[in-house]
């Protein structure tokens, strides 16, 4: 991957706003830890969108005002949150049944790698001395009708995180619907990876070179 690095990229806020645009009113959504959390900031306040947190709530509201944190009301990242009127609490078996049963419309997740066939790797670097931890990652990867991934297109070393086959241990197979990167928005389709958006100033040819996998335009 020695293609020249693009000069323009989507900012993290632009990426989050782009994901938010794809979430219609009435959707049930789980936003993973990290970058996906930012999507919440871009969901229009006048739109009823239902946020699920796998530790046991639906109808999650924004962070509480300082001094109003409740240690019993946290999200999956263990940050203090609030509950909207109309929200509900439930236990872990019910919460993960809600995901596994396909009731959520969207999960938005971070990733180390996504393969051309939609395999996701986001839980384990594969490093020999790493202590493994999975949490809800594997459930989230299967836990919605559509799974969106948000990630930088390239590693710090300039390698594509969109790959022919994951080299990191996978989280789930064939689960990703759409990939949002700082360079492009790409659908995973039965016919292969299909580019939906591309950042200004980057040509299709350059994107293919940077990605190292076949892309349809």
């Amino acid at each position: 991957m020695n293609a020249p690095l693009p000069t323009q990229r989507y900012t993290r806020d632009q990426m989050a706003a782009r994901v938010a645009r794809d979430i219609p009113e009435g959707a049930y959504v789980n936003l993973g830890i990290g970058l996906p959390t930012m999507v919440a900031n871009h969901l229009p306040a006048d739109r009823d969108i239902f946020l699920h947190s796998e530790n046991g709530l639906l109808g999650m509201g924004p962070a509480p005002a300082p001094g109003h944190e409740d240690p019993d009301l946290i999200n999956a990242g263990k940050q203090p949150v609030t509950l909207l009127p109309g929200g509900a609490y439930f236990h872990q078996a019910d919460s993960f049944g809600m995901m596994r049963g396909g009731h959520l419309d969207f999960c938005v997740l971070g990733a180390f790698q996504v393969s051309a066939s939609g395999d996701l790797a986001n839980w384990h670097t594969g490093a020999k001395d790493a202590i493994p931890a999975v949490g809800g990652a594997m459930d989230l990867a299967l836990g919605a009708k559509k799974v969106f991934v948000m990630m930088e297109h390239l590693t710090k070393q300039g390698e594509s995180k969109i790959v022919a086959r994951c080299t990191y241990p996978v989280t789930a197979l064939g689960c990703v619907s759409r990939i949002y990167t700082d360079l492009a928005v790409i659908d995973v389709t039965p016919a292969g990876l299909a580019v939906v958006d591309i950042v200004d100033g980057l040509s299709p040819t350059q994107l293919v070179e940077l990605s190292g996998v076949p892309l349809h335009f």
Partner: protein
Amino acid sequence: MIDKTVATAAEAVAGIPDGATVMIGGFGTAGMPSALIDALIAQGARDLTIVNNNAGNGEIGLAALLKTKRVRKIICSFPRQVDSQIFDALYRAGEIELELVPQGNLAERIRAAGAGIGAFFTPTGFGTLLAEGKETRMIDGRQYVLEYPIHADFALVRADRGDRWGNLVYRKTARNFGPIMASAATTTIAQVREIVPLGALDPEAIVTPGIFVKRIVALAAPTPMARPGAAG
């Protein structure tokens, strides 16, 4: 008259033997029965298998229990955290066994134990390192892994209020693993903020019916704020 209340945390954890499998509720600090864990540390049982979502944070609670080196094995979904240094050191030294389970499979395996299910096919984990060596099956065009129940000898859970029959209600997201762990253990011990008179809990809103609870102790300890970290 049946009265499951006991006066102290020490009394509540009495009789947990060496070698026991003990489930401990909580996700981070929410729902973590800290006073019961401290009592278990004081009680001295060793060679324990612990089931929890995490593997301890900082130097308190479950982390402090691990530090005593009385835990032989931990079954959890998310051991590695910013402040899981006690577990990390034990694990790297080979002094604790880890069974890593995806969080939803952990919950469903605990629920299956409580509900008398012998095993179940779950899609979660299929094709991953965590399903290696496990039985798999294609059902209606989807791939599944066979998972077995996790039973426990004891469960330590934290609820908000309870009564002398052992009925429990939880508070907000502190509910998490409490209800399913209460159903999966031979002896469930609940730490609550307040014990209320029989009939004071709304029968439509009782989350854990008393049948799942053997001992209940009221302890006013507040929940510390969790330290935000990675998922799980």
